[in-house]
């Protein structure tokens, strides 16, 4: 591990370097008048706008609406996707029957179904939650199936030979063996769910961050739009990073494991 230290620092410095160069270029180009301030306001202006937005009660309502929709959809996506994934993964015949459908749904650009959801549920909370649930669900189902299939049969046989009962088999063999893949799948499911909520808000909505984005875009309010984008990027990356750390923590044993 020791010799890699120096290079680790270089990689880290490089990563931050990209962010700093990007931020500087953004700011300097704007100040020098090289970029159109109407189209790309300088970073400092965007950050100032972001600060105002965070103190703007109207925007905070939009943000809360969006976060609640994401939370509600993910609260369905995670357990339902895993449950379906486990059941299908455990039952080979069922897997043979439904796998093509799941693959088909995974491959389909599900955004095309949005108008149908609006007709079926009307514009609002239910429509957004159901639509983004569908967007996020299939990734989690596939991860659940993959997680079940990743448990080596030999490990199960060995565990039976030293006397596990059914409950112990599921809780003490299957669950820990599957945890890294489960978290990886939930991570993907969360990113897709967020995408689904924002898309449905941008397409047709009366509130939410996505709706605000469209309104700002239509009235050329670039500082607000850029500030909103920055905020959503930060929130999404933070959530994703948390799950990545969990995935790494529970999957430590996978390092060079066969």
């Amino acid at each position, binding site marked *: 591990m020791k010799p890699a230290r120096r290079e680790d620092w270089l990689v880290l410095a490089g990563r931050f370097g990209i962010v700093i160069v990007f931020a500087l270029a953004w700011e300097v180009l704007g100040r020098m008048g090289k970029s159109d301030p109407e189209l790309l306001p300088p970073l400092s202006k965007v950050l100032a706008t972001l600060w105002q937005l965070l103190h703007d009660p109207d925007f905070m309502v939009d943000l809360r609406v969006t976060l609640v929709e994401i939370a509600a959809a993910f609260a369905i996506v995670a357990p339902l996707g895993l449950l379906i994934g486990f059941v299908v993964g455990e039952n080979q015949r069922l897997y043979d029957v439904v796998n093509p459908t799941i693959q088909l749904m995974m491959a389909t650009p599900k955004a095309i179904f949005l108008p149908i959801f609006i007709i079926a549920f009307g514009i609002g909370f239910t429509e957004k939650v159901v639509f983004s649930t569908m967007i996020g669900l299939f990734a989690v189902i596939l991860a659940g199936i993959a997680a079940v299939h990743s448990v080596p049969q*030999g490990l199960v046989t060995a565990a039976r030979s030293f*006397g596990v*009962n059914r409950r112990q088999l599921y809780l*003490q063999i299957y669950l820990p*063996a599957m945890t890294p893949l489960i978290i990886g799948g939930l991570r993907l499911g969360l990113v897709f769910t967020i995408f689904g909520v924002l898309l449905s808000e941008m397409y047709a909505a009366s509130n939410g961050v996505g709706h605000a984005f469209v309104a700002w875009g239509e009235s050329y309010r670039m500082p607000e739009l850029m500030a909103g984008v920055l905020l959503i990027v930060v929130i999404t990356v933070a959530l994703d990073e948390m799950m990545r750390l969990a995935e790494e923590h529970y999957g430590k*044993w996978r390092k060079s*494991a066969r």
Partner: protein
Amino acid sequence: MEEVGAMTALAVAETKPGRTVIEAIGVSKLFGSSSGPVQALADISFSVGSGEFVTVVGPSGCGKSTLLQILAGLVPASSGTIVLDGQTIDGPRPDKVGVVFQDAWLLPWKTAIENIEFPLALRGVPTAERRARSQALLDLVGLGDSARRYPHELSGGMKQRVAIARGLVQEPSVLLMDEPFAALDEQTRTRMGAELLQIWERSGRTILFITHGLAEAIYLADVVLVMAANPGRIVERIPVTLPRPRTIDMIGSEAFGRLRNHIWHLISDRGPL
């Protein structure tokens, strides 16, 4: 079914005295396949006395792993009976049988000592007791210093030692081993064989050891059961009278060579390995 070898010169002594611990009576196994049922094992009968080291050798596909899984209660026999320590086997009996597989199958998220403790933890043995017993077994297999290491930090041979310790931790009267050293390089395999004999002598367990290596089968055994395929059956029961403790040098001896040739012909005259 217990034919004694034609090589009477070698088959002098009957096995060690002691009560019977494993008794297989007319064990058969049929598997369904796309082209109809396949007879994996046909009418297998043998017995193993307490403290004996029995090896089962045979060509691949002769059903020796299936036999072990039936003995371990992991797979039901189609017909016939297994009596272990006076009790008929109809499912895993971890208190009577420890199993070591070709792959160690340690739980990769647990340390070496936690892996050995695991079967005891399942039964609710108190932490202090199971830790002490597991550490003693780690010492026995020569890994006393590696208790806190994870499987991915252990070599293939070390993993198998942990698996052996785990097989012994519930103090079973029988240890079943399914080609436990087959995935190891030859040097490690030879050394592990010698160490297994020491562990066997110190622990006083009965061992049934499956292998496809003729030298390994003879070197370790009191009795070699030779199997043939299609259907899987025992063709000869060969007592090994080489003195104990066995040494690596014995593998080059004349008596050893004659035994090996005899088994070689038993197997190869019936078809390719």
